[in-house]
């Protein structure tokens, strides 16, 4: 029995099945990456582990206890940072520390917060508000907040997907370094196989949705610390990468789905309408008059 265990987990939203018969077992101290297409249900999966969603059937257990609600034993780094914009870096982390370790003295809390700010190299920016930080810096705060509550498991929900390539690789290095320092159990959700292979001990592809499920797990046999430059020439890396991508493409074949979705785009009025056109011309069709649109997804 693994440390984190998902057994026959299924989840649907209304009539559409998102995840079906998912099984996953993660050992203590293991770094597992789950790679999937956008819209395959990756965030749903992480929400099931964090307890923000409940599975329709099957169970999620952490350390032999079934997960039924969200809690601070699981640190979550959300895709869109989720920092509170009215608190600065220090206060954002302190809010979490204050909540999880209520019996600590203020001095101890303070020292703890400073330690994690330093861990993500943000000591200089400790008094800044999230709006004054770049995307990469915000995500570091989010990582520091998740780690500062000393969770049993760290859940990373596409933490780097909103960042530019350069910042992303810097942060990958940092996540790698931090993980090697305290060896937490980590589940990383990502859409980038390279990122998964670079960071994780094991990489598991999520098949294309709807009704996605986990594929076979691929062990990453590359020794740590991993060198980003060297890794590109490592035959192991290339082989693994090819297998993961092939599996994902294979799972997608034959699923030619048409997604019909309501468009809720803002109705943008022309800024300076031509009065002559307004009086005599035909009115252009507005975006909110387009009720639905069918997008072919191959």
């Amino acid at each position: 029995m693994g440390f984190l265990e998902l057994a026959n987990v299924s989840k649907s939203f209304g009539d559409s099945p998102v995840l079906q018969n998912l099984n996953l077992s993660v050992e203590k101290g293991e770094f597992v990456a789950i790679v999937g297409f956008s819209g395959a249900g990756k965030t749903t999966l992480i929400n099931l582990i964090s307890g923000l969603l409940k599975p329709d059937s099957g169970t999620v257990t952490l350390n032999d206890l079934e997960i039924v609600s969200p809690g601070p034993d699981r640190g979550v780094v959300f895709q869109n940072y989720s920092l509170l914009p009215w608190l600065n870096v220090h206060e954002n982390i302190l809010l979490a520390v204050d909540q999880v370790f209520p019996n600590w003295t203020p001095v101890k809390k303070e020292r703890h917060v400073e330690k994690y700010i330093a861990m993500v190299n943000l000591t200089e920016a400790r008094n800044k508000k999230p709006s004054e930080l770049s995307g990469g810096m915000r995500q570091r705060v989010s990582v520091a907040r998740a780690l500062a509550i000393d969770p049993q498991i760290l859940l990373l929900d596409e933490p780097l997907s909103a960042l530019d390539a350069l910042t992303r690789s810097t942060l990958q290095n940092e996540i790698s370094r931090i993980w090697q320092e305290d060896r937490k159990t980590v589940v990383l959700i990502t859409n980038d196989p390279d990122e998964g292979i670079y960071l994780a001990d094991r990489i598991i592809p999520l098949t294309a949705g709807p009704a996605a499920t986990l594929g076979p797990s691929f062990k990453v046999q590359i020794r740590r610390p991993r060198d980003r430059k060297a890794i590109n020439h490592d035959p192991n890396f290339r082989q693994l990468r090819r297998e993961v991508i092939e599996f994902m493409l294979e799972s997608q074949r034959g699923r030619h789905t048409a997604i019909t979705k309501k468009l809720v785009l803002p109705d943008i009025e022309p800024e300076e309408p031509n009065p002559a056109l307004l009086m005599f011309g035909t009115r252009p069709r507005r975006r909110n008059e387009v009720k639905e649109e069918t997008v072919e997804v191959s």
Partner: protein
Amino acid sequence: MKTKLDWVILPALGFAAAIVIWHIVSQTVSKELPSPAKTWNESRDYILKPFEKRGEMDQGILRFTWYSLLLVAKGYAIALLVGTPIGFMLGLSKTFTKAFDPIIQVLRPVSPLAWLPLGLVLFLGAGKQASELGALFTIAVCAMWPTVLNTALGVRAIPQDYLNVAKVLQLSRRKTLFHILIPASLPYMFTGFRLSLGIAWLVIVAAEMLTGRPGVGGFLWQEYNALNYAHIILCILTIGVVGFILDRLMSLAERRFKTA
């Protein structure tokens, strides 16, 4: 150079045009309307000695304004204290919304002139205090709605992310309220506060006119009855300027919270 034209010269031209039209109207269409010059002459005492008290209904214009502001401040405070919690409950509970939204929508468009008699009746037993309490009731009831509706809107608009943070950290209800809900909806709440203040200031004049309390509105009504039409214009201008200043002050405060 361009900005100076936009911010100084053009507004000055606008005021000048309004004064010219006022003058022409007072000379042609309506001979009873005091001309700008006459208005100034008759109002000079009130403006140049703004704090003087010559009698109960004969005081400097800023003194009257001060009375009105005091009453507005009280009524406005009641409106916020009552309106904000109602807004929160509307924003948080669908059941509460379903139960009380219809009655709010029915009461909201009722004019201050309609509420005031009810307010006076309500506090009939209060004797001398009746007119003040009635006026406060009217101000509070009329000014409350923007605060109620904007607070509800702000609470409903809180991003799911923030609520997820609260859930993951297992914040208590109290902590969620003070650390997440209130700060997150503050920008909307302030928009409501600003609109409420505007309405409170509108209502005060009506309330003072009908109750005959000393203040800008009371003075206006008294001077109408005393046929001192120039003072009516003085009062109108005072009310407008004060309302404008209040709105500016509130939007400054609002902007502070918008960036947060």
